[in-house]
């Protein structure tokens, strides 16, 4: 029973037959996992891996699961997309790469799906869904205006139309390999507009800087030096980001960028169980030690608890209703804490920190700390939930 639920939680949540989690786990285990530790050490992005995940022959590509079929995407539900990302995290054992995939496949594509005009959708979505074009987003811009805006938008010189964007964005996931960027810029009156800015825009520069964590994600800093973009670069309405793009972007980050971590937690738990069988301490098997048994029991429980919150929040994107920001934030708050708890528990078990293997514990330990601060971290998530509970804020 347990092995079933540890591996197939999403199949239950989705009511589907063959588990997409299993499918994605197998794919990522074959394509991503073998080089994960090496790419992490070398801080390297492998476009070939992304292409292979995008064009998976036997199932939905991971580049555009939420893009409608008519536009070349997988046409999957949000729940099934969540399952794909869980499987990617589990089988790939590479939180950085899973982050890059999630930012492109969910954040960048869904904003165009939800807010793009037909011309924008036709131009971007088919090539994003095939993996040909990568869309990049700054993780600084996924929490509305919790952080002060670092990019300004002013009308272009009279008669030309369009906008002039100036400023800089850091923590841009996908920047070095991106075809285009989602940029939210502030106007002089404080209102904000979302733009889709192509990489070839004159004045746009990418610096090769990124965080210490999530080293397999292609990071960059984007400098916008008086970039002139056409009216058609505006996503949705001018000045409307706070009501349109920003709430969706936040909820997508909280839910779907958490999904690979559920997979990582399951992988860590499975590893820990296998390791505990092999190691001895004080001349007895670690599996006989009550403290180790309790740690493993709690790790397994954290996976199931996180799964429930995550799939509830993902499921709210299906069926046409409005997802709850409170439930999305609660899912992230819990998954981030659970990821750290599971990583720490795994690291404490005797023999966990070996010199061989793919060092998932060490990488996950570093990346979970970073993950816990993205999406705004507790300082954004807790006020969001509290505001909803208290009816203020």
């Amino acid at each position, binding site marked *: *029973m347990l092995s079933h639920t540890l591996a197939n939680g999403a199949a239950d949540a989705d009511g589907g037959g063959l588990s997409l989690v299993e499918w994605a786990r197998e794919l990522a285990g074959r394509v991503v996992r073998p080089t994960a530790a090496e790419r992490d050490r070398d801080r390297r992005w492998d476009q070939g891996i992304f292409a292979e995940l995008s064009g998976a022959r036997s199932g939905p590509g991971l580049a555009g699961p939420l893009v409608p079929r008519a536009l070349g995407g997988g046409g999957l539900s949000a729940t099934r997309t969540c399952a794909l990302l869980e499987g990617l995290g589990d089988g790939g054992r590479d939180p950085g790469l899973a982050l890059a995939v999630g930012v492109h496949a969910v954040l960048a594509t869904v904003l165009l799906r939800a807010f793009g005009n037909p011309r924008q959708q036709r131009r971007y979505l088919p090539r994003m869904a095939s993996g040909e074009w990568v869309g990049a987003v700054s993780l600084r811009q996924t929490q509305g205006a919790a952080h002060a805006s670092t990019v300004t938008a002013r009308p272009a010189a009279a008669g030309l139309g369009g906008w002039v964007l100036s400023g800089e964005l850091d923590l841009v996931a996908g920047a070095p390999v991106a075809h285009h960027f989602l940029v939210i810029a502030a106007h002089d009156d404080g209102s904000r507009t979302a733009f889709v800015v192509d990489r070839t825009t004159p004045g746009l520069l990418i610096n090769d800087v990124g965080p210490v964590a999530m080293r397999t994600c292609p990071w960059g800093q984007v400098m916008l030096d008086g970039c002139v973009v056409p009216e058609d670069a505006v996503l949705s309405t001018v000045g409307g980001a706070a009501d349109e793009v920003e709430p969706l972007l936040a909820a997508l980050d909280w839910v779907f960028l958490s999904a690979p971590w559920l997979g990582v937690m399951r992988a860590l738990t499975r590893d820990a*169980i296998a390791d505990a069988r092999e190691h001895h301490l004080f001349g007895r098997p670690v599996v006989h030690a009550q403290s180790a048994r*309790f740690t493993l029991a709690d790790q397994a429980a954290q996976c199931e608890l996180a799964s429930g919150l995550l799939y509830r929040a993902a499921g709210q994107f299906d069926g046409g209703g409005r997802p709850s920001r409170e439930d999305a934030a609660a*899912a992230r708050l819990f998954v981030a804490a659970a990821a750290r708890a599971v990583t720490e528990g795994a690291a404490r078990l005797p023999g966990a920190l070996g010199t061989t293997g793919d060092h998932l514990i060490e990488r996950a330990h570093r990346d979970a700390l970073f993950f816990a601060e993205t999406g705004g971290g507790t300082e954004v998530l807790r*006020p969001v*939930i509290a505001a909803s509970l208290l009816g203020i804020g």
Partner: protein
Amino acid sequence: MNGDHRGIDTAPSFPGIAARAAETDATGRIPLQNWKELTDSGYLRLFHSPDIGGTGADGPTQAAAMEALARACAGTFWAATVSALLCAKLISTYGDTREHARLLRPLLSGERLATFAVVEKTAGSDSGTFRTTVRPAGPAGSDFVITGEKSRIANSPAADLAVVLARREKLPGDDGPDWCLAFVDLRQPRVQRYAIPHMGLRGMSWGGIVFDDAHVAAADVVPVPIEELAEGMAWGWLFIAFAAIGIAESALAASVRHARQRVSFGRPLAHMEGVQAQLAESHAQIDAARLLAHRVTCERAAGRSARDLIGMLKIYATEMAVGVAARAVQIHGAAGVTSGHEVERLYRDAQMNVIGGFASNRLREQVAEGLGLGPAVYRAFDWVTPSGLGRDPVGLDGLVHAAGDGA
């Protein structure tokens, strides 16, 4: 709290039982009106199929009902659910639904109350220490008698019927199980009972039963291999998890109410970020437990075991509720530690769930076993000294100091 808040304010409610919760706790007994409200609501029949008098509710309905009743009054919830869910499931699972219809019918109608008597004074969940025994009253084919003492048992002082875990005194040639469930009528002279004051869930009676060759009908002694019992006992873990979730929800709702009303340093507490952080963490943790609880209730209602998941749930939910109740007391300040205040009661109630029906660490052992780690292993604690870690080290100058003492 927002009116549209999912899962907390839209569930069915037991308004009378909720209104009497403080009184129920203070007087240490469940008012008759509570039983009437329970019977009228159909709660006692939800968990069972129509052939034994149930209404066969689906998983979501069972879960919503348990959550709502636990939220209204945890003591009443425990008393009613031990009887109508746990004991009735034990009887219908291990007994014979036709033979034992006479026992099930009054439990589901609310005319009778049952108790599940497992633990004895010696050691909580270690069945090896249990001594209560059932033996034939006379020659083969006749009825049985039961002797022994069960203690710290929910519902036992007030119940009419006990489902008792007992050893079987076996005649030569009997190679059946060593254990049985005995369905014992408690309204008979050779049964003595006593109440024990307890920390929380005070409306529910709690105490011991002494069987002194009490009579048990032959049909009411059901031999059961003890390892099979965990399946039935998981119903107990499940409802106790709901007790914890209901308590935590009540504590959070009280905290939200208080935070919005209480003005301190010129502003409502609700505007203080430390309070907000506590509310948000409690909310996320309650939802995590709720979602797992509803999931496993549906598994169970569909006839699947889900035993290890229920074990995980019971551990997490009960310990989570203690944390949420403690935060609620802190948010309420001095009011929260005043006897008779709602959160003071919830704080006491929450702790009972961690212990009741298998304490957390006993369950962690079971979950670990379910992970494929094998059964719990006991070895006398004797490995530190042989490892060279059992004595104090010498100082920085080695043995010089000791030698100096000798000079």
